[in-house]
């Protein structure tokens, strides 16, 4: 176990804050990707196509 001395709570809170914010950022980006793909799928099902003729779901 690492000995963090008398200010262990400040150090632990700092690392926890970074983990939390980075985790939220990753989660938000992942959920946003799923949401956009779901919207594109709905549009494709309603018969809307891109001007290029390719499917809206044509995501590499």
């Amino acid at each position: 176990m690492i000995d963090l001395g008398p200010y262990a709570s400040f150090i632990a809170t700092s690392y926890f804050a970074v983990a939390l914010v980075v985790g939220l950022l990753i989660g938000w980006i992942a959920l946003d990707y799923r949401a956009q793909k779901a919207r594109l799928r709905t549009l494709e099902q309603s018969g809307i196509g891109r001007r290029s003729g390719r499917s809206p779901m044509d995501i590499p």
Partner: protein
Amino acid sequence: MTLLDLANPSRFLSLAARLLPWLAAITVALLVVGLYLCATAPDDYQQGATVKIMFIHVPNAWLSMFVWTIMSVASLGTLVWRHPLADVAAKAAAPIGASFTFLALVTGSLWGRPMWGTYWEWDARLTSVLILFLMYLGLIALWRAVEDPSRAARAAAVLTLVGAINIPIIKFSVDWWNTLHQPASVMRIGGSTLDRAFLIPLLAMAVAFSLLFVTLHVAAMRNEILRRRVRSLQMQQARGYASEVPAGNAPSQIAGAAS
């Protein structure tokens, strides 16, 4: 593949799909190495173990300025070259930059309380970073407030370039004014004043966080391209609907008759 090829959003999506798994894997590996080096770094003779906060505070502080610099370059791309992905890059970077700036402020405060005896001091460095954070929030609000992406892009690009004046102020605030915040100890003329025992974990974390930014930025850009594709298709759908509805049955007339 040239920069011009990447101007095509579909090509960018294709490249992002290939790059993202690798970027994510390398970022995780570097974070693990960086955290191990942080955990095993010795205590500082003055700061004790609180020096470990520096290993996460400094990379976040560097990235808070770096991301705005990237956004400023992207804003030039929007205003001067009208690069199709420039605004996408700037818009996608803003929430990530705001997060890094927020973390720089929080971790700095948590280091300041045991070392300076206070969480906050209105000195030039801390205040200018707080202004940077508020500017990030303002920019995100601007993008959300203007519905038309091309109009929002130009306004946001101008605001980003005006805000770029804050970056050298943050960097040199510790030299220009008498601040509680210590002067630069890594990026300075004459080399780093840090001992290798602290410099190596700090640089390892800086590289890991930089790669984390690249990974998140590419993923957020991909999302923004898809969001614009959704918007474009929804407008196409609305135009198609409007052309199908007979003139006498236009929604405004129906709404007017109902009221």
